[in-house]
């Protein structure tokens, strides 16, 4: 990878930068580092702005990387200044704001202050939790759920076509078959639009009030994700929105839950359901993830923030999604009334309202997911 065109010390400085970047969590592998050095060969390496952009386009691969990249760049090159002689001044590149949807909450000092004023319990509890312990019976339950979930799921028609008995004429296959008969198209072969499993998006509330159920719900998420890895998305919702789809794709449930445990920064913290839902819709849902999908929200609806925001976002979600299923573990308690303000605001926009307090209940939920509205009559449908 070492460049032949650069002096040795430049190469070493740049290698050190790549290593720093890796330590900061940017997946700058050898291939990317090679691209970085190839890029430096074509540019003026004494110009900090050139190095900044060369590194940014070659070493980063997602919008989430850019924040780390900027921080590493500023930090590393303040310790290793550019030996150009003509720009000894500390390096400053005007960094454009990245990903406004994500930055909105963190960067706005006023907004954050307001939220803290409105809800004292909204303090982010940034700690990881070890959820690696599963009993043998629980494993068996997971296996059962998996078997139930792996096969069935509501389907939708795609634009992709597949050979079929009815439908459009399949000219390619007809011609190919006709060659066997000296060019006589004896049989007309056809193709029609295929069906695909619908995308399932799961938003799991991992705030303090939901902590007894969070493990079971994440196990359900893993079962769903393993059944259809390509069309399942999992997020944890608390004080931060964390995408867990990648972690949930691990084969071993223990490993998946461990990975999720270390990926979630806000275990058992507060809830900002409305804000989180808005962030989900802004950065993922509206762009296409929620469109035509089956969206599962697992939460008790204890919203301490502004409830009208949650109502508005649920309405938005209801318009985008194929169906919205709300899983509330507290629903199973005798004499349950949806008294939590957030729950009340969300109810008009929910298609199915089910409980998820035990593994049995989760299995019932699985039938709602796979078989459609089987449980509506028993569980009671909020929306006529």
């Amino acid at each position, binding site marked *: 990878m070492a460049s032949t065109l650069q002096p040795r010390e430049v190469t070493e400085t740049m290698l050190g930068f790549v290593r720093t970047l890796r330590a900061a969590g940017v*997946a700058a*592998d050898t*291939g*990317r580092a090679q*691209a970085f050095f*190839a*890029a430096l060969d*074509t*540019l*003026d390496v004494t110009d900090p*702005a*050139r190095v900044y*952009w*060369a590194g*940014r*386009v*070659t070493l*980063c*691969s*997602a*919008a989430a990387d*850019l924040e780390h990249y900027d921080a590493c760049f500023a930090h590393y090159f303040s310790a290793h200044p550019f030996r150009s002689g003509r720009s000894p001044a500390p390096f400053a590149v*005007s960094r*454009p*704001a*990245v*990903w*406004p949807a994500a*930055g*909105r909450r963190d*960067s*706005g*000092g*006023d*907004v954050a202050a*307001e939220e803290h004023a409105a809800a004292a319990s909204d303090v982010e509890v940034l700690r990881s939790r070890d959820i690696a312990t599963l009993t043998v019976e629980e494993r068996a339950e997971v296996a059962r759920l998996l078997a139930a979930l792996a096969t069935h799921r509501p389907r939708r028609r*795609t*634009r*992709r*076509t597949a050979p079929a008995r009815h439908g459009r004429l399949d*000219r*390619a296959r*007809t*011609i190919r078959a*006709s*060659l066997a008969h*000296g*060019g006589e*198209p004896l049989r007309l072969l056809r193709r029609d639009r295929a069906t695909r499993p619908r995308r399932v998006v799961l938003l799991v509330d991992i705030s303090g009030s939901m902590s007894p159920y969070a493990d079971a719900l994440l196990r359900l998420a893993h079962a769903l994700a393993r059944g259809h890895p*390509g069309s399942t998305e999992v997020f944890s919702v608390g004080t931060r929105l964390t995408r867990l*789809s990648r972690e949930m794709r691990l084969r071993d449930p223990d490993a998946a839950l461990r990975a999720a445990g270390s990926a979630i920064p806000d275990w058992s913290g507060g809830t900002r359901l409305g804000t989180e839902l808005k962030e989900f819709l*802004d*950065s*993922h849902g*509206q*762009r*296409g*993830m929620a469109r035509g999908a089956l969206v599962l929200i697992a939460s008790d609806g204890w919203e301490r923030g502004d409830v009208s925001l949650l109502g*508005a976002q649920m309405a*938005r979600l209801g318009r985008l999604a194929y169906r919205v299923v709300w899983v509330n573990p507290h629903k199973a308690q005798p004499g349950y009334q949806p008294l939590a303000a957030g729950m009340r605001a969300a109810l008009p926009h929910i298609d199915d309202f089910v409980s998820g307090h035990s593994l049995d209940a989760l299995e019932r939920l699985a039938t709602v997911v796979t078989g459609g509205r089987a449980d509506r009559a028993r569980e009671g449908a909020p929306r006529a």
Partner: protein
Amino acid sequence: MSTTTRAAHADITTPEDLAALLDQRDYLADDGVATACFLALRMGRPLFLEGDAGVGKTELAKALAGALGGPFIRLQCYEGIDAAQALYDWDYPRQLLHLRAAQVAGAADTAQLESGLYDRRFLLARPLLRALEAGDGARGVLLIDEIDRADDEFEAFLLEFLSDFTISIPELGTVRATTPPVVVLTSNRTREVHDALKRRCLYHWMAHPEFDREAAIIRRRLPEATSRLVEEVTAAVQQLRDPVDPGADLLKPPGIAESIDWTAALMALGARELSPENAARTLGALVKHREDHESVSRRLSALLNGHEATR
């Protein structure tokens, strides 16, 4: 490959040269865009562009084609797109006619019939094949738009194409690009594009432009607009996009495309400056959601006054 690249673009030796060429095509590239395109050109790697809708990803590809003087070929991805729509397809009606003609002429040799059937004249070139065949002299630009809309099977298929710029047609042989096109991929992030594809690309996140650049872009696109109108429009749009501004919580913050549209709409009404009245009448060119429409019109005068105060 790099020698031909260098020969064709001997005049582009720094990102500034490229920026100047893009400028001639009315695309005002910032430092990041210019460097990213320059590296894509020099290193022969695809450029993977991400950014909010309306920041000018597609425009960049078009301008780049103009700057290089080559053809611009666009492949719009959608769900269910397959090789027949991206690479090539056989012209089946013509093949059937050919079979009939051969039958009437009395040809019965199946092998000969088959080889005649898969002739280049029966091949319909789709965007990817066209991009390979078009690169004659000047380098073309192949835009693979909204790759995230295609299925992941299609991504895997693109991998092969992007790594060696060849297409093998079983019945005809391998088609190779004489000068490989500059490939620009865009994504709106409706789903995560596979790492293997990203690894082959240079990644660039396009942010919204800052005040001066946006005003310059609008001025360039609409030279007849008064400079007061351009500045007021830019200030209002920038404020709507500002993540720190608590009121501007829009479902879809306007992009540059929208600010140009808005200015054009205001000019069509004969406006020389922004006023609450003409802004309210033309708001449909700026925001495209009912909720956004309501929230912007509610604070329209504050939006315009805020600009007055900062000037």
